[in-house]
Structure formats: structure tokens, C-alpha cells
């Protein structure tokens, strides 16, 4: 398993932590931010972060 694979696996662990209970419970509440409900915003934000970081990691490995 090369470096990139390891880093992506770490990212996987982070995603696991962020997207599931109990951590998820912290955002599972009513309220809004920028006019958007908190939980959907949080989930999509994390999702976006995962994609971006993965992109950055694999891109870094290629050069």
C-alpha cells in the first residue's frame, strides 16, 4: 500500500467518524446557517471536503 493509498484510507476513517453517529448527533439539530438547515449543510460540506481532499491527495501523488 503506497502513501496515497494510506492517506486516502485515513481520509476514509475521517469520513467514517464525521458521517456517522455519535459524531453526527452533534449536528442533528434544528437550526440554519446561511439560510440552509444545519444537518444537510454539514453532510454536504463534509462530502465536499472528502472529495476535495481526495482530489488533492491523488493529484499530489501523480506529479
Amino acid at each position, binding site marked *: *500500500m*503506497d502513501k*496515497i*493509498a*494510506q492517506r*486516502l*484510507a485515513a*481520509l*476514509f476513517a475521517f*469520513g*467514517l467518524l464525521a*458521517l*456517522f*453517529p455519535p459524531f*453526527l*448527533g452533534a449536528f*442533528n*439539530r*434544528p437550526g*440554519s446557517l*446561511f*439560510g*440552509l*438547515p*444545519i*444537518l*444537510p449543510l454539514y*453532510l*454536504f460540506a463534509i*462530502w*465536499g471536503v*472528502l*472529495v*476535495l481532499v*481526495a*482530489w488533492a*491527495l*491523488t493529484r499530489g*501523488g*501523480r506529479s
Partner: protein
Amino acid sequence: MNVTFWVAFLGVGYLLGLFAIAYATDLARERGHSPVDNPWVYSFSLAVYCTSWTFYGSVGQAASNGLGFLPIYLGPTLVFLLGPSLLKRLVSFCRDQGVTSLPDLLEILYGRGWALGSLATIIMVIGITPYIALQLKAVGHTFDLLTGRTMASGIFGDASFWAALALSVFAGLFGARSLVATERHEGMVAAVAFESAVKLGVFLILGLYITFGIGGGLTEVFGKAMASPELSRLFLLGEGSGTSLPAWVTMSILSASAVILLPRQFHMLVVENVRDDHLRTAAWTFPAYLLLINLLVLPVALVGRLYGEGMAPDFFMISLPLARGHTGLAFLAFLGGFSAATSMVIVASVALSTMILHHSGIAVLGSAFPAFQGGRVDLSRPLLYTKRAVIFGVILLGYAFKHWIGESQTLVATGLLSFSAVFQFAPAVLLGLYWKGGTRTGALTGLAAGFGVWTYTLLLPSFVDSGWVGTALLTHGPWGIELLRPRALFGLTGFDPWTHALIWSLVFNLGAYFILSLLTAKPGGESSRPDPPAAWATRADLEGLLARFVGARAARDVLEGLPERSSPQLLLEATERCLASALGTQSARIIINSTLAWPRDRAVEILDIFGGVSKTLAESREALERRLRELVVLHEASHALSRSLDLDTLLQEVLLLIKREFGFEHLAVRLMNDDGILKIRSHVGLIDAYVVASAMVPSRETYFGQCYLDARPVVVGDTRQIDKPLLFSKLVKDVPIRAFIHAPMTYEGRVIGVLTAYASRGPMHFTDEFVELFAALANQLAMAAVNAQLYAEVQAYSHAMEEKVARRTVELEKANTRLRELDRLKSDFLSTVSHELRTPLTSISSFSEILLRYDVDDVEKRKKFVTIIHNEAERLTRMINDLLDLSKIEAGRLDMFAESLELEPVLARAVGTTHPLLEEKAIKTVKIIEPGLPPVFADADRLHQVLTNLLANAVKFSPEGGTIHILGRKLNGLAQISVADEGPGIPSDRLEQIFERFQQARDPQKSHPLGTGLGLTISREIVERMGGKIWVDSELGAGAVFSFTVPLAEQSSAGEAGTGSAD
């Protein structure tokens, strides 16, 4: 009808577009350019994951259950972050093993056998059929929605039926282009990737339109929704929101496994993967795709809830623009949904058909059509058509499910049913990849148990929902046992049906897997797959075999991809892998194994310890082992050769060694003997009659003769093809010879014999290496044979020498003895002679002294004394003459002058000479001469001397007044003269001795003998010199007859003259 036409036109036109893309891709590939070899295309093709469920169902689920749609995409997102680690391992493992489907993988992981693969296939077909049905349902439903028709009026009025038909044609054409499933379906992949792009684009366009065009922007939509208490609960998880936290986790787990294990995903991920690197890009592009396609689901659902009163939530995407009069957008949405559905149906049906064919399908075909088993027909075409028929069947099965069952379910519910079914494979696959302890029984039982729980807790209740089964089952349990209620099994309540099913199926699946794996684990650990015997396999054989199943071109491609000098093992593995991808691992193994047993002529080579190991094996382990073995044989042979110098022992030992090491039953060594005949010197297992018959001068009429004459090995691999029948019939009469090899035994450029091995097992292929080895053995044998022969010769020579020495020694000893005897005789002779000389000398000296000293006056007396002196002097003279004669004879200087003589005068003179002696004893002589006796050839004086001696001798032994008979006659061309006396005779043991010196028969009465005792000796010498013989016949008391012979003059006048004076 107008709208119907246009919608149908759009659908058909879209499909034709897909055909064009797929066709163009395949064309490009044939020109060597692969548009599919691109990480983006790969990622988009993976998006086949997003089906109608995503396109329509997510919106529907979001509208009713809020965020519950998300885990279906979050699970895959997380799994793809493991792309370069977990997935890469899976993909490369599958590629190495020629795996084309999940059942294949299981069989590889847990060992081969029908049960596991077949069970997996059955589960897959049962599990995926609802999913296909879901797609067809979506197509049909949206078609109806768009055209405003009433729902499904019979099968032929059902749009989804026609869609199913069209899709099966596409899948059959592009998903079954070739039987080799590992050969990628690039046209299909390109079409699917295109469809993914279409559905994403359409979804984004529609999403933006609905959110902003209808809803008035994100903040407005969310603002309105949050204002509504009914809608604001959609933004939360847990009680009241429709999506509980356990359900959140369950969905994530199910989707995470489904994105790998669903047949279409497995196919795209593993089989259509061009290179491992693409997984790295897919690690972020695929999640990004999922993110994008889900970004606007929630707003669209909210808009639908806010503005789309009375619409089916699943189809907001079409009904919302339609309600606003935007028919074009509705068409676009239909197109997006259509592409989502078609891509899934195409890939899933192809994947399932491969699975069905590989597991049980081929076996069923094989038993139905015997041609499949053993014939040589090209099967690639029929097999391809079979595959297409199976694709067609799979899609129709999906339609049937939709038609009779699926209508009552929501899209998501149907989809999750499939997800849960596929999840049952997750433990077996993951544990199989990472844990070595799993066994086949464990995997099989775990899978069966999980699938059973799935059937009971999910499938059965779905039948209840369709009204096929009474609801009592759900509320009261089977036979009223509440503990067994399908949705509250063993009293487990408080969960949604998916979580409930997940928990129980996981418990049973894993439980059964572990328990049975541990129970059935072999002590040896992992069972290694036995390698097929590859010794015989040649490139051409395997290419022929492959061509039967996958076509000539594919077969050539597969084998030409291997290095030039690949070992048969490697070729066989490649063949098996290719067959496995075309027919499934199990069938491939069976075909390979039965192929190894097919060709009878090959089987012989396998038996043949040398043959069949093709030249390409030169460097392989087997070849090295064989080399080593050959060296050991050579070594042992040379050891045996040096151990003994006895030729026969040595030959026998080497023959037995060859028999033992190489398994020849009959062996022979022929050696050339001094007569130019090539003869069997030593043999094993041959009959004596042949050994005798085969001894002959080497000629070209026989194989061994040819071998001898050409000094080159002669090999006959199959005696049915012999062209020199001479002798051979004699040989095979008792020994069933099927093959043989002759090798010349050459020593210093000279052939001294032939070494032969006969095989009776069957025809054999003698490899070059073996012939070489055999020839080397023959040459070694030749050297040893020559050595042994030389040794034998040296031994014989030394024996001869020893004998000669011994003989000489005996001779010398004899000579020595004779010399001693002679020496003794000489001494005796001297003492006798001196004694004999002294007697007369004594008389002479004493009588002369008397005369000198005393005056003997008496004249008479004086005269008497003088007479005595005179006689004694004469005797002395005679004696000395005899001695002189003897010494002359001894020295070989006896002079003889032979001439023709009349016998009568010689006899008369001899009688005259002996007259005084005769008178002294008053003896008469009687002469009897045969009348007409011819003259003899002799020396007169010597003959006279002989006669005188004999007469004197006769007188000496005759009594007073006796008679001496003298006889002369002719006998055998010689004259024989005999002198017979009437004396006392001679004892028979002394008849020879008397001719020796001083060996005269002594008169027992007289103290000293008469005469010198040399007469007979001298006579014998003389007679023998004259060419005659002398002997005596006598009986005691009856006198003695001395006889001698002399040659007659007429015969020997020419030759004897010389003899006389020769010495």
C-alpha cells in the same frame, strides 16, 4: 398519440445513439486506439450505480423521509476512498485469477465445486431481478406519465415491455460481443459512460430549473420548508423524521457493499477495469459524481412537496415541469431517467448472463448436447448465441417480476431489497480476501443462512405487500408463532425492516460462516489448488483447444501474448484463465482436465518418461531434474563399469541399471566377435531362440545391423511402422515389442557392438536427449567392454607364460636328472673301464714278471705264459679299440663308408674271425641265408664288427658244444640278420638294458664277464647309423635271438651313400 410517438421516437433514437457510440468505440479499438482507457471514462462507467432509483427514487425518498436517501451515496463515497488499497487488491486478484463475476471469485477463494458458485448465482438472479424490474417499471411509468396514457393495458401496450426488448437487443449485441468475458466490452462501457454523463447533465439542468425556476432559489425553498413543521423534520434524523439513525447506518453499510458486489458494479469495477491506476482517480471522481447528482435532490423534493400537490413523489422530475407546461424539459427528464435505467439493465443483464453461463449453465448445456463434451467442433459461435439468449431471458425475467409483483413497491424499497440480498456476499468476499481460515462449507452455509434470513425477513413481507400472501403472517407470525414474525424476528422490534434484516442476516451469515469454517478447517490450512499435469501441453494443442471455445482469433491473441519459450505450465494456466473467463472457473477446470485425458496418443507420451517433455522445457525444473537423473544413471553406469573387469558381469549390471532406471523390459548388448559375427553377448528378458537366431554378420537387413554399419543410433518409436521385418517376427513372437532403440558402441572410432533397449508398453517417443544419453551409455559400455577384453587377453597371456615356464622347469629338471644320471654312468663307466683294463693288465704284468724274474725253463710253461700274455694283450687291445670306437661314436666321428655288399662273404668272414672262440667251446654255427637275398648297403668293416660282436656274445652265453644259428632274410624292404644262441636267455625287463654300456648280462656263475661289455652298445650305434635297428627276443632258459636290420642296396643306393660319410 402524437406525444406517444415522439416519446417512443426519443427513446428509440436515444438507443440508436448508444448503438452508434458503442459501435464507434469498438471500431476505434480494433484500430488499436482505446477511448475507454481513461480514468474519467472509467469513473463515469462506474456511475452505472446511479439508476432510476437515483434519478427518480431519491427525490421520492427525500420528499417522504428526508435525508434517508443520502447514505446510499455516502457509503460508496467512503468505500471509494479505499480504492487504491482495498479495491485495487480485489481488482488485481480477480484479474490474475480470470474472475469475471462474484460467484467466480467465491469459487476461487473457497475452492472449486458447483455448489457455491451455483448458489451465489441463484441468489444473484433472485436478488437482482427486482432491481431490473425497478428500472423497467420506471421507464414504463414515466412513459405513461409523459404520454398521459392510462397505466399498462396488457403486455403489448406496456411501454416497459418494449423497452425491455430493445434493451435486450442492445445488451446482446454489445454485451456479448465475445465470449471471453475478460476481454472488455469497450463499446458497452463507452455507451454506459455516455449515459452517466447524460443523466448527470439532465439531473443538474432539471434540478436547477426546478429549484430556481419553480422554487425561486435555494434559500427560498429551504426557508419555506423550515417554516413548515411538517417539512422541517425532514432535515433531521431520528424519531419522527422518517429516517432513524440505525437506518442511516444500515443504508450506508448496504450501499457500501452494493457498490462493489452488485453484478453490474462488480463487472464495471473489476472486469472492465483497464488499469489499476484508474482506481486512484476514481477515488475522488466517483464520489464527486455522486455528490453532484445528489446536490439538488433535496431542493427538488422540497419544491415538489411545496408545489406539486397530488403528484407521485417518485416522479417529481417529470411531473413538475410537465405541470408547468415545459414539455421539452419533461422530455429531457424522461431521457435522463431512461438513460439511468437502460445502462443499469444492460450491464446487469450482461453480468448476470455471464454468471449463469459460468455456473451451471455450461454444465446444463454440456449434458444436453454431447457435442459439447468431446467433439472437435467450433463451439464459440453456439456459446455466444447462448449467452445472448440468456441476456434476453434475464431482462424478460425482470419484466415479469415488474409485471406481477413490483407494481406495489416504491422504487427505493425494491432497490433496497436487492441491496440487502447482495450484502449477503460481503462477509464471504471480504473474509475470503483477508482471512485464511474460511472454508468452502463455511462460506456456503453462511451465504445460504444469510440468504434465508433475507428471504424470510424481506422478500416474504414484500409478497405480503403485493397481496400474494395474507397479512396474518406479518401480524401473527407463521402458524401463529409471534416469535417468528418476519419483521420482528425473535422479538426484535424498534428497527426499520432493513436494519432488522441486516442485523439478523448478519448474525446468521457470519455465525454460520465462522462456526462451520472452524469446524471444517483442514489441519493443513489452505487447500492448495492442484496444478494440472502440463508435461504434454504444446502451444498448438492449447490454441486448438481454446479456438473451439472462444474462436481462433481470441485463442491466438491469448497465447501470443505469452513469451516465446513459455513452459507448458504457463501456457496451460493462460489457457485455463481464458477458458475460465469464457465459461467459468469450474467448467474451465473440467475442460482442461478432460482435455488432458482426451488424446490417446498423447497419453503415451505422458507415460513415456522422456517423451513429451517438449524442448521448451529445457530450462524448467523438470528438465533439470531429468538431467540430474540422467547424470546419476551415467554415474551409476560408470561405477558399475569400473567395479568389475569381468565382461559378462559388467554388461549384465549395466543392463539391469538401464532397466531399473528407464523402465525398459528388454535389453541386449551385441558384440562383434573375431569371426565377424554380431552376437548377443548379454541380455535381459529376451528369449534364447532369438538370441541364437540374431547372431549374424551385420547387414542392412536388420536394424541393429544398420546401426552397426552406420555407427549411428537407430530409433523406432512404433514397431507398427517397421520396414525391416527380418528377424523381427521371431522377436515379437514371444515378446510384445512396440518400440526400440539401437545405439552403436563405439570405441576409438571403431564400432564394437550395439546396445539395444526394447519397450513393450506401447509406442514411445524417444526424445533427442534420451537418444543422446543412450548413445553415451553405449559408448561407455564399449570402452568398458574393450577394457574387459584386453584384461582377459592379458590374463590368458600370463597364463600361457606360466604354463610355459612350468613346462620348461619340468624339462630342465628332467634334463638335470638325465645329466646327473649320465654323470653317474660316466663315473660307473670309468670305474668299470679301469677295472676291466686292470684285469688283463694284471695278468700281463704278473705273467711277464714271472718270466723275467724266474727263469722258466720249461718251454711249454713259458709258451703257455706268453700265450696268456698275448691273449690278454689282445683283449686289452680289443677293449681299447672298443673304447675308441665308443668315444668316436659318442663324439659323432665314426667313419662309415657304405657300399653294396653281398651278405654271404661278410657272414663267412665273421664266423672265421670268431672261429677261435667257437672252437674253444666246441660250438657249431649254422648259416641260413634266404635264397636270392639282394645285396645290402653297408660299411663292410662295421657290419663285420657288429656280426663279430653278436657272435662273440652268443659264444659267451652258449653252453659247451651248443649251436649258433645265423639267419639272413628280407623283411619289409630291409635285410634282417639274426644270431640265435642256446644260452640261459635274458629276463624280459632287461631286454632293453643290455644295449646300454657295461650292461651286459652278467654270468651269475662267473665273477667277471667275458668281453668288454661294450660290444652291444657299439653294435647298436653302428646299426642305427647304417639306418637299421637292433633288438633282442628272448625267454629265460630258451636262449636269445639278437636281430638287426640293414637297408638293401637297391633301395638306398642313392641316399645312403651320403649318410655314411655324413658325419
